[in-house]
């Protein structure tokens, strides 16, 4: 059994210690936001925040998240449903195409901007290593800068 907090909700899950967090979230907790894309920490579609750090949940295990505060893409919007600044920037720049990878990008960028409020392109390149097969990268870069500018205005 493992206990943690996900999107503000305390949960405890009876699970195999070898079961990745991704599948605990998707199968045991019914959360579809984190996606299975590769299973080997290559694509980033499964990323979640674990105590504020962006982690690929496909290689994160119950033992890694005991008592942790986990945020998935479903937890980025405010409780009243309003989008986060980053999600809104994704809409404003019309970023997603198929959209399957975007939850992972939104998590990676949320972690980046929390740490580096006005990242350079090089900092973005280093921090955001997710894969998008549709090729939305030019818009992702624009949306990151837009969100950073909005956040800087407070």
């Amino acid at each position, binding site marked *: 059994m493992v206990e943690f907090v996900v999107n503000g909700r305390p949960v405890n899950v009876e699970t*195999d210690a*070898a*079961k*990745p967090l991704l*599948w605990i979230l998707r*199968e*045991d907790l*019914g*959360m*579809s*936001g*984190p*996606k*299975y*894309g*590769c*299973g*080997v*920490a*290559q*694509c*980033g*579609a499964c990323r979640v925040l674990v105590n504020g750090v962006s982690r690929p949940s496909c290689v994160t295990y119950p033992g890694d998240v005991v008592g942790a505060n986990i945020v*998935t*893409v*479903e937890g*980025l*919007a405010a409780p009243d449903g309003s*989008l986060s600044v980053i*999600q809104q920037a*994704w*809409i404003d720049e*019309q*970023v*997603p*195409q*198929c*959209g*399957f*990878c*975007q*939850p992972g990008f*939104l998590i990676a960028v949320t972690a980046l901007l929390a740490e580096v409020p006005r990242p350079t392109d090089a900092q*973005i*390149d*280093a921090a*955001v*290593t*997710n*894969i*998008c*097969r*549709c*090729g*939305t*990268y*030019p*818009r*992702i*870069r624009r949306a990151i800068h837009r969100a950073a500018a909005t956040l800087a205005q407070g």
Partner: protein
Amino acid sequence: MPRLLSRRTFLLTGAALGGTALVAAIGGAGYLATVDVDGRDGFLDGDRAVLNAFVVLHDDGRVVVNVPKTEMGQGIHTGLAIVVAEELDIPFDDRISVVFPTDPHPAYSNWFNALQIRPEEAAGPVVWVGRRVLGQMGFIATGASGSTMGMWHPMRQAGASARHMLLAAAAARLGVPVAELATGDGFVRHAGSGQSLSYGELARAAALLPPPDDPVLKPRAEWRLIGRSQPRVDLPDKVRGAPVFGMDVMLPGMIHAAIRHAPVFGAEVASVANTAQVRAEPGVLDVAVINGRQVAVVAHSWWQAEQAASLLDIAWTQTGDEAANSAGMAARLQAALNNSEPHSHIDDGDAAEALGDAAATLVEAGYDVPFVTHACMEPVNATVIIRDDGTAEAWISTQSPMAVRSGVARGAGWAGVEPSSVTCNVTMNGGAFGRRSDQDVAAEAAFLAARHRGRPVKLIWSREEDIARGLYRSHAACRLRAALGPDGLPVAYDALVAAQSAFQSIGSRNLPFTPGPDGDILSVEGLDKLHYTIPNRRMRSIHVPSHMPIHFWRSNGFSFNTFFTESFIDECAQAAGADPLDYRRALLRDTPRHLAVLDRVADMAGWGSPMAPGRGRGIAIEECYRSVVAQVAEVTVAADGEITVDRVFCAVDVGMAINPDAVVAQMEGGILFGVTSALMSMITLDRGAVVESNFHDFPIQRLANAPAVKVALVDTGLPPCGAGEPGIVPVAAALANAIHAATGRRLRSLPLARTETIGERRTRSVLRDPAA
């Protein structure tokens, strides 16, 4: 898929046509002169007022648009909702939602892709019969960049028809003539009395009125939505992480399946040595051999199923392809180019004689590309239930509900079950690129569902199954020859391509019969260069069979032939001592549309301005899916061969762009997809099996190596053309030409580079054999 089925449907259409032509001849052909609109009658369905097959109103003013096209990232749900909203005369806001209808209504058939006749131009008996046959077949599919071309006009008509019915309902309610009424913002207004009625109030009465015979469409000058960028209707859910994809489907009582396919394509299951052991693993419910060809594990969770499947000890039958490897496969293509009897597609003038003219300058070059795969971000999956009453239902990321219905019936049949009906729920697709038009995963899931009657079974292929045991675009090789005249321009052009027929392979898996391989049009897309003025032209193809399963892959033959031909045109320009842009301008002297696009991209890129040493720019142009697309790539090549794609400029004429920003996005995405393919993508074979298995060895561009992209839309006044695939088409040639400009080296094989890992999830591309 659509193009494949077009052959079959042409046959069926032809058979039906004879009878109908006879009826028409006897009964008078007048009724065939125009094509009537399918699904135009309204009805009431609970709280829904169905105005026609495409427009549903609720009494609170919500408008549901039925879009029978798969949303796989291209924005088609938004584009087609825009044309309905335009004709309905409502703002494009959150009162509008889009659903993919589950009812295989004939109005939803993809007859445009099959018949290649625009609905707005369609008339006469062939179309009349073709529509009916295709409609009855449930021919609903998304592909070949044809959705806007095929649907924008019928959906304009649907919107206009619904508006007409709302006006008529208001006229009856208010007791005034329709001519005194106006629409706007979801209301019908009567200026004389100041009265107004909302669409919601009128919907139920309107649905029961007769639709107009020929709804009047809004004149272009009055458009407020079409041609102006609107936000995508599917994005709010997607940024919230809502469960919109096939993989996200959750149903009560659902069980989960993982699968193993044969490493060597075509092999069958000889034995499973440890069925009992795997069956005893935690959560496992079933270990099943599917149709003798795959082994699936069904469990309470997919993770349990996949864990158990990894323990399977499967012996596969020998097929004779166990020694196949990439070098041998490539040699087969070369041998075919040298020795086979090609199929002739074009033989205009006398290319052979012109090529033998001793006075001409002969240019000859060979090119080749490897197998590649789709690697959609959402791995292949399907959820199917077969209920005790015999009905079946699927929830699936698919491009083709027709293929799903057929696949479910086939898969259930392997278990001895014949479903009484198959309902297909088309979810959002996490990428598709042609991949999701095959029946494979639907059939597999249906077989398992038939073994577990009454429970939904969700089958997910692991990423490894997706890449190493999946479907592929053919490898290909070609030989191009040109004879240049005194002015340096080609007098003759001779193209010969060797590839595996996609039609034959797809048909063998998806149709009751296997089409012949010769003359595969997918193998020669991008090879004819008809837009270039060349007096003598020959184009031939050779089908080279293999055990590899070949499938549609975004832009199909264009993805290799345009690399071949637009590289070759640069080689001809070089032989003629001409600038690549000037050379193409001369060749396009008879096609002003292409010239306008070419000139636009050259202008955007500052063609001709000096570049630093080690940098270069290359240009390429193609006509595809009725669009014309030209690109200029700028690259930097370091001394050690590292190549950086700095910028890609793109000018494209997709005709009238309904949602311009979505077209721009398709070009951007196509370019990135094409850069990945040109620099990085290669499926290799060893001992008959695919070597690559995941993104570490089938790499994709990431943010760090993605070029800047600039797109311009050129409008030469044409109706909408295809936009989903053109973006990818010229990239590889533009890159190869840029590398030549930067280094003097002509690269004639894809991928142009090898991928080196330089950190965690970070790569660089290095030209192959930089010393050459």
